[in-house]
């Protein structure tokens, strides 16, 4: 496996890896924020039911 050629993507590294980087960022945010919000809501609920 030639890793240099793999990362070079036939000279299109910016476009190909840019695509995959955008996917990771955009889809990552869409997972991270909802999980954070769910945890926050669950915590609030727990606090309220203990009162």
């Amino acid at each position: 496996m030639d890793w240099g050629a793999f990362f070079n993507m036939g000279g299109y590294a910016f476009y190909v890896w840019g695509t995959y980087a955008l996917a990771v960022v955009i889809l990552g945010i869409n997972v991270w924020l909802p999980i954070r919000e769910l945890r926050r809501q669950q915590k609030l609920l727990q606090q309220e039911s203990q009162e």
Partner: protein
Amino acid sequence: MFKIASARHFYPLAGKLLPWISALTAGLIFYGLYLGLFVAPPDYQQGETVRIMFIHVPSAWMSMFIYASMAIAAATSLIWKIKLTDIFIRCSAAVGASFTLLALLTGSLWGKPMWGTWWVWDARLTSELILLFLYLGYIALVEAIDDERRASRAGAVLLLVGVINLPVIHFSVEWWNTLHQPASVAKSGGPAIHPDILVPLLVMAAAFKFYYVAVVLVKMRAAIIASERHTQWLQGLKG
């Protein structure tokens, strides 16, 4: 069916399903990336840029699939007024907008090396951009109206009017002359792609579908807690 449609039954069910759907999503993504980046050969015309397709095309499919799901849910919501349906629609909007943005941006990254331009105002690209504005318009409209029921109704009407854009996106490459290539998978006579390219494309498409389901389930659970906080069943669950 109607039992599942109530938040009380949906909340724990979603919690049980989530680990499985998440695991399936992760597995499909890794398998799809492996096939797309290591197994699929470079295209004889487009070279390595063909790998952009494994993100771009499934994203574009998702942008339309999510909008169609929201519109169908909107139609049923106007008729039967099930609260969970409205929660589903609201929780889908941001994911749908994100896939639309991803399709547009990755299309740009593909267009530059292959067409020599980041953007053209042709039918396919313009109608996909309109789809993004429909998502953003829906989100803004629902956020702007305080009364929950009125917000849902107004949002549902907007979604249904915007449905007209979906066939325009799909057939745009046939109706108008465009730089964008015509459909290769969803065409009469079956897909015109080699399996080495088609299989990773379909695996990524499946991965994105399950990703969407997982994200929506998480968001719906949070939204259910937010709206039903003071009900007894939720208090009894202890998180």
